[in-house]
């Protein structure tokens, strides 16, 4: 594959679920690309559609109540149109997923190594002894101490961090080119989280593993991502390199979110800048830009949905969905930061 070909190219992905109360448009026109060897973080709050996007790529949102449209090219397969059998052949094999809760992947009544062996043998024609050797290698590679012995433990005998490592070992067992990691460190203590981030970074560098990281934790994004897609209420509102998103945010939601973070390495500001209001219901989202009702800078044009596109000639790969004049944005962002000091509750 040439360096310019993305490993994963999602175009206009839309997912809606029929519920008793009406259709919920959980993902509303998501387009993104993940290059080989890259870490793309999809960051957003609950209900932003980040997990539904990831699960849809894995074929895990299919069902009678789900309507899925758009395309998602992964290597030589179109995932949205692929049959269930085709997806089964890809899942766990060329594309693997890890979750927040490792017990969603690990079976409590099987020994850890046996689960990995089973996965390997389901997709590869190898003998039990060879598969077991491979499982132990993997457990060792993800940092499980004394892997040979621990391989025969049951998941409940592992700590939370060790289970996360075991799940990662299982995900890597067939050498996938893409790892989808859905909030992989959210349930972990901070010292364990740091170890898992380090492990993912290491796998990305040494094995050229591409990672689609789904998270709400902007600190984790800063530690590991190459590029970032910021999602809000079903849509990507901004998309750029790590530094573009953090140091030159273009969408008022992005800059509001970044401003509201607390940091351990800075003394407290007088007041924590906050975004007023709350995210909209996806049963009846607002017309136009979904952030409009919470945005201090909304104007008439925001009743139309802005496209996700580059808006400045000097940053052709930095995309956003905002009608604000690009030249004015820095000034508005700085004014917001000043106003934050006096804002009401």
């Amino acid at each position, binding site marked *: 594959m040439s360096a310019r070909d993305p490993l994963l190219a999602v175009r206009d992905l839309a997912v809606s679920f029929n519920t008793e109360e009406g259709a919920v448009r959980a993902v509303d026109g998501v387009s993104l690309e993940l290059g080989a060897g890259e870490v793309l973080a999809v960051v957003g709050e609950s209900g932003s559609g980040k997990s539904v996007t990831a699960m849809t790529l894995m074929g895990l949102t299919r069902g009678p109540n789900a309507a899925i449209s758009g395309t998602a090219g992964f290597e030589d397969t179109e995932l949205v149109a692929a049959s269930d059998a085709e997806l089964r052949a890809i899942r766990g094999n060329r594309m693997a997923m890890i979750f927040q809760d490792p017990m969603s992947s690990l079976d409590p009544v099987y020994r850890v190594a046996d689960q990995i062996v089973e996965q390997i043998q389901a997709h590869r024609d190898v003998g039990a002894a060879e598969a077991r050797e491979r499982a132990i290698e993997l457990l060792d590679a993800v940092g499980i101490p004394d892997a040979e012995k621990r391989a025969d433990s049951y998941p409940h005998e592992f700590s939370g961090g060790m289970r996360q490592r075991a799940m990662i070992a299982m995900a890597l067992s067939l050498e996938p080119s893409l790892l989808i990691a859905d909030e992989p460190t959210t349930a972990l203590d901070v010292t364990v989280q740091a170890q898992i981030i380090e492990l993912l970074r290491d796998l990305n560098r040494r094995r050229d593993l591409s990672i689609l990281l789904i998270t709400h934790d902007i600190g984790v994004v800063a530690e590991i991502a190459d590029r970032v897609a910021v999602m809000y209420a079903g849509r990507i509102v901004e998309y750029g390199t790590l530094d573009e998103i953090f140091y030159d945010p273009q969408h008022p939601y992005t800059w509001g979110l970044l401003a509201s973070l*607390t*940091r*351990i390495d800075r003394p407290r*500001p007088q*007041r924590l800048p906050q975004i007023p209001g709350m*995210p909209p219901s996806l049963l009846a989202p607002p017309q136009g830009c979904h952030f409009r009702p919470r945005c201090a800078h909304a104007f008439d044009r925001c009743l139309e949905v802005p496209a996700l596109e580059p808006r400045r000639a000097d940053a052709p790969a930095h995309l956003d969905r905002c009608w604000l004049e690009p030249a004015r944005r820095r000034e508005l962002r700085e004014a917001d930061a000043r106003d934050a000091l006096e804002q009401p*509750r």
Partner: protein
Amino acid sequence: MSPAGETLLEVRDLVKHFPIRSGLLNRSHDSVRAVDDVDLSIAAGETLGLVGESGSGKSTLCRAVLQLVEPTSGSVRFEGRELVGLGRRQLRPLRREMQMIFQDPQASLNPRRRVGQIVGGPIKLHGLASGAELRRQVEGLLDRVGLSPEHYDRFPHEFSGGQRQRIGIARAIALKPKLIVADEPVSALDVSIQAQIVNLLDDLQDEFGLSYLFVAHDIGVVRHISDRIAVMHDGKIVEAGSADQVCEHPRDEYTKKLLAAVPIPDPRESRARRERAAAAG
């Protein structure tokens, strides 16, 4: 911004052990030292942040301070009065002064009660108001925490996580307490909502002169809200000091390790930190 208030809460040598029972006779043969000889104090109007990882004993300490679990030994003085050893009846008037906010308002709000009953419950229980006066007070509380008086007759499930936390806060301040113990009050909330709740707690502190024992695993939030920070590990306070001092010049090895693991939402800073760590081996 160091509040020069008098000592409100003074905890000395506090110990809480949980026996480990097993076997046919359910004998206790060992114990978990969940809180192991803890000292701390909180001044009037002050916020003490308590940080630590899961299992460090933070939540048990909170409950032992409020006498929701009976301490094994030690002393908890509130405005100079010893709480350890007091009976239910003796504690009751003191409970007005000390309230708690929980992580998951979903679990701590009775789903079958209306918001008005939840928030007004403590006022009614202590016989402080009833009827129209009670309703008026509750509506005032709802307004104060950023909800609307029209929410009075709704049920908790009709609210978002952030709004439910506001309901929990309204209930906690209903009796005008002096101390609020907040156990992970913003951990379950989205970032944009966290900031709203943190600011609300800040405002209420200014308005009512509240003291907080603020527990969280998110050290960034704790640094923002706290005057002083205590770091808990394996049931012990391993370090305590001003928020700036603990975060910028930690002395204890565990504190250093904990702070080094916190991700910094600033890619340049986080790269620089990785390089420093690599250079230091």
